[in-house]
């Protein structure tokens, strides 16, 4: 395996609605900042890969216009995944492992405010037997939450405590959208949005973008004083039918964590992309985090949820803590699909 590291990370603020800027205009300052941080962020990179969703943009091949933020001249080697940017980063990492690139840019962007996101996300469900019923994201997550609550896997108090922790942590994150001093009692007093989920159990809807630069070997240490070396990188997808999955655990995260080598050493920081409080608990358990691990110091997805960038940002937040010497070993998680259907785990280390 080649030694590959995250050497740069930038992001836009997560905001409920970008009324004026389109996706390209959101991306341009993010990539400019990455260029200032690392010296390269466009056609200078050997490979470029983006993650976004045409369903959010409401038109086919919308991701092509995202390339305007990179600049497509001189001709570049690029690719796209209709997935969170974390999976774009995975493709870029594979490209470097294959020897086709030494540097790679991965970025993710989304502007879900253009539609009714919980309904837009119904379009990711089976198009014949599920989607025509238009189950919104919150209702679908609620089926999983109730299943866990009634099995006694955790309590509503424990779910609320996740939101309290993450939004408290987010107070120091200038890019976060929902932050402050919440309390378990205050959250439990909220009316149900979709019983059994309250508003504070749900990640916000956010417009935003983020970008990461990868580099191999010596290039990494030339660009970044303390690169965040990728020690493990895996993703696993579970079946689409809810009835054949165990909704009380994140089996995909468990397998990805094992393959990525999460458990082999201490973990200073973990950043989770779980968009609902109960899913955060399931992911924490699946990763097998030790009690001293600091979870979601940025606030995680519950504090800012720019769809298609939120998972990539989790990897970036871990890497940034390694750049600054605040962490030596970190675990980032990204997810996609209903009820944690697909999960990605990335282990990063400074040295």
């Amino acid at each position, binding site marked *: 395996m080649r030694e590959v590291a995250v050497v740069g990370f930038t992001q836009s603020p997560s905001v409920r609605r970008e009324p004026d800027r389109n996706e390209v205009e959101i991306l341009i300052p993010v990539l400019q900042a990455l260029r200032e941080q690392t010296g390269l962020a466009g056609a200078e990179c050997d490979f470029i890969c983006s993650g976004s969703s045409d369903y959010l943009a409401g038109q086919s091949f919308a991701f092509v216009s995202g390339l305007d933020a990179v600049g497509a001249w001189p001709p570049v080697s690029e690719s796209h995944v209709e997935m969170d940017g974390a999976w774009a980063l995975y493709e870029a990492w594979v490209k470097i492992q294959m020897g086709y690139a030494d540097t790679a840019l991965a970025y993710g962007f989304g502007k879900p405010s253009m539609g009714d996101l919980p309904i837009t996300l119904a379009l990711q469900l089976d198009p014949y037997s599920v989607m*025509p019923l*238009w189950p919104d994201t919150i209702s679908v997550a609620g089926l999983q939450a109730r299943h866990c609550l009634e099995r006694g896997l955790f309590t509503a108090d424990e779910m609320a405590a996740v939101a309290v922790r993450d939004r408290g942590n987010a107070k120091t994150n200038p890019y976060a959208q929902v932050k402050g001093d919440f309390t378990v009692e205050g959250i439990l007093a909220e009316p149900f949005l979709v019983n059994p989920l309250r508003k504070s159990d749900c990640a916000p809807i956010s417009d935003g973008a983020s970008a990461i630069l990868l580099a191999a070997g010596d290039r990494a240490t030339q660009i970044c004083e303390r690169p965040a070396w990728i020690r493990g990188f895996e993703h696993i997808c579970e079946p689409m*039918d809810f009835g054949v999955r165990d909704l009380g655990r994140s089996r995909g995260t468990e397998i990805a964590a094992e393959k990525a080598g999460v458990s082999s050493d201490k973990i200073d920081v973990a950043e989770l992309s779980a968009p609902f409080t109960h899913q955060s608990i399931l992911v924490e358990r699946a990763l097998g985090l030790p009690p001293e691990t600091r979870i979601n110091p940025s606030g995680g997805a519950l504090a800012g949820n720019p769809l298609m960038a939120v998972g990539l940002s989790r990897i970036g937040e871990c890497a940034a803590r390694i750049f600054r010497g605040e962490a030596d070993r970190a675990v980032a998680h990204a997810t996609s699909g209903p009820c944690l259907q697909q999960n990605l785990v990335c282990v990063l280390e400074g040295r």
Partner: protein
Amino acid sequence: MGDERDMNTAERALTASHTLEYTYKRSLGPILSRFFTGLRDRKLFGIRRADGTVMVPPREYDPDTGQALDEMVELPGEGVVRSWSWVAQPRPQQPLDHPFAYALVQVDGSETPFLHVVDAGDEANMETGMRVRIRWAGETAGAITDFVFVPA
């Protein structure tokens, strides 16, 4: 357009509504065709999996083993709620215009709960473990929306 300096302000930005559509016709394939034809005829079918259990909706391949499946099994139109979410304020796209539940319903004779709708009238009528039965639409079209569940 007026003064170009104003074009980026919220008041002057051009906006347009856009309807997201999927304007293609798709083939359902050998298994789902039989499933949806069954619904049109007011019959519910599952499929026998490699381990002998029955799953509904039927799939062409076993989700665990990938083995091709083809033994359709007719199921009774009733079962048990395994989990539910209460939609107090339905969205315009959703199948009922009054409060209802999305639920995971395990139909008798099958082992896999599947997502559907329970028209229970009131949230207080919902409970995990409750029995529900199919209520067919007045006219069936061979679609998953041909029925909803109601308390049995």
